[in-house]
């Protein structure tokens, strides 16, 4: 359980996180979504007790993150999978972390097996691929069998098999009643894994909701229809509240009506419906709709704003 209240973090003049309040519940996977630079990593660093909040508070399992006497039991985190000594082996890396809390050596072997690094555990971690590094980072996070697991962009750089593995792992952890908090800048990644969703942009909370509600609220759905007389059907359906557009393949995309309404209108006019489907707004669309004002770096050409890179005279 992670509880964040009025959390603000400033680095000099830059406000990375501003007045965030939300909680992450045990037993489900909670996605933490936001564009690059939205403050996800900063928030996670404060959850792990690495950065001090400028104001506001963070508690993990009821206590401030730095107040736990057995921290690896309470919260396991992965921020940067490359944060290893390059010539130290995966075994020694994990063993050094385990020793701090008196975690026995056998546990290191267990987590190495669990993440599938058995064959490379004796090699220098600096030579690991990104996927192997991610697995090592996750192994470190799981060492103390923590009640709360915090992973920053765990699917970055993974292949399909690795992504499936992480999804299954996160589901398992949540199924065991753990609090699982996973960040991503890709909505599609989160939607397939998470149940709950916390969305931030420019350090501010945009949404704290379920994945299903988020999609439903962000963009209305449309109805795709193909029929024996598209032109007539389009004329029948059009009204001030309804827009009808033709798709490249000849189908009509109707927004403002439900599939039932479209079907009934076609039936009443004696038009044969060949295809009728509700189109859910895509997850990326929903995400972009909500965060488009909060994207920090955007490619918007400003023709008369002068040179960006000035030459030295």
């Amino acid at each position: 359980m992670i509880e964040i209240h009025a959390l603000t973090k400033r680095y000099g003049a830059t406000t990375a996180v501003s007045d965030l309040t939300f909680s992450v519940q045990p037993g489900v996977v909670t996605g933490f979504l936001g564009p690059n630079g939205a403050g996800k990593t900063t928030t996670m660093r404060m959850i792990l007790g690495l950065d001090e909040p400028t104001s506001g508070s963070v508690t993990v399992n009821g206590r401030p993150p730095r107040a736990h006497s057995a921290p690896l039991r309470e919260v396991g985190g992965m921020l940067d999978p490359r944060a290893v000594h390059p010539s130290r082996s995966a075994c020694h890396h994990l063993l050094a972390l385990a020793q701090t809390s008196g975690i026995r050596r056998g546990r290191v072997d267990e987590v190495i097996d669990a993440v599938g690094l058995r064959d490379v555990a004796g090699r220098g971690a600096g030579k690991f691929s990104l996927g192997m590094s991610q697995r090592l980072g996750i192994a470190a996070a799981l060492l103390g069998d923590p009640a709360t697991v915090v992973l920053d962009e765990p699917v970055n750089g993974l292949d399909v098999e690795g992504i499936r593995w992480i999804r299954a792992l996160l589901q398992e952890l949540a199924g065991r009643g753990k609090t699982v908090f996973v960040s991503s800048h890709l909505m599609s990644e989160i939607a397939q894994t998470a149940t709950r969703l916390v969305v931030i942009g420019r350090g501010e909370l945009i949404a704290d909701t379920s994945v299903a509600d988020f999609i439903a609220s962000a963009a209305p759905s449309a109805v795709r229809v193909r029929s024996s007389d598209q032109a007539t059907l389009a004329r029948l359906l059009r009204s001030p509240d309804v827009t009808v557009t033709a798709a490249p393949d000849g189908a009509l995309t109707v927004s403002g009506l439900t599939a039932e309404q479209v079907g009934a209108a076609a039936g009443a006019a004696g038009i044969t419906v060949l295809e009728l489907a509700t189109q859910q707004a895509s997850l990326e669309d929903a995400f972009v709709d909500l965060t488009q004002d909060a994207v920090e770096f955007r490619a918007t050409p400003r023709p008369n704003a002068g040179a960006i890179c000035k030459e030295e005279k």
Partner: protein
Amino acid sequence: MTTWTRSQGQALVTVPAYSQPQRVTQARVLRSEWIKLRTQPSTLWSLLSAVVLIIGFGVLYSFLREARPPHGVAAIASFDPASVSLSGVQLAQIAVGVLGVLLITSEYASGLIRASFAAVPRRLPVLWGKATLLAAATLAVCLPAALITFLAGQSILGRQHLATTLGQPGVTRAVIGSVLYLAVAGLLGLGLGGLLRSTAGGISALFGLLFAVPLVASFLPGTWADEVGKFLPGAAGQAVTSVYPDPATSLAPWTGFGVFCLYAVVVLGLAAQRMRRGDA
């Protein structure tokens, strides 16, 4: 202990639970730091360099002084055969000091420090663990090297009847003091590394403190150069490494060493202060 498995698509995940008690203690952090110390190559290379420099340069300089012995009563009276054989310590302090810096800055550079601090949220046990092991490793490796170079140097100088023995007043103190000096130089490096969190910055600050500051101080007018100079870290610490420190340019042996330790304590204290508060 329970084991759980479940497959989704092709993925099979098996992570056993772990119900053993856990708790962070200074002794456990020390064990953790011991694993880190012996599994990073810079430890081996630095300490090996220190040994080679202590023995190699000590023997070389002993041969040099054997070939060009002191002439005249005054020169012979002030000749310090123990210091000649221990002259490699001056170079070895670079190796040990750099190891001290690297021990902490390599963790900041890679980001590993965050994993370390997440596991040890009080943070300072990590610094004390590194300091303890650095000092212990330096003493364990450099004390035999200092004894070897002393004995080898004396057997070389003995051919010109210039040798001394460990039984002479101040000689054993100088040999052991040289090794203690190295250990504290390492701690000074560790403190500077922890304070500045950058390898380049830490090494530069260490060299500046040990070599550049005395150079600047030597330009002070009149007796100021000597009076200020003897309190600078390098000169103060080296008082304990010579059998007859010159009272005009040097503090008494253990007083000087105490001043040197004080520098290390202050720098480590500042590093601890910065580490305990603030962001990792």
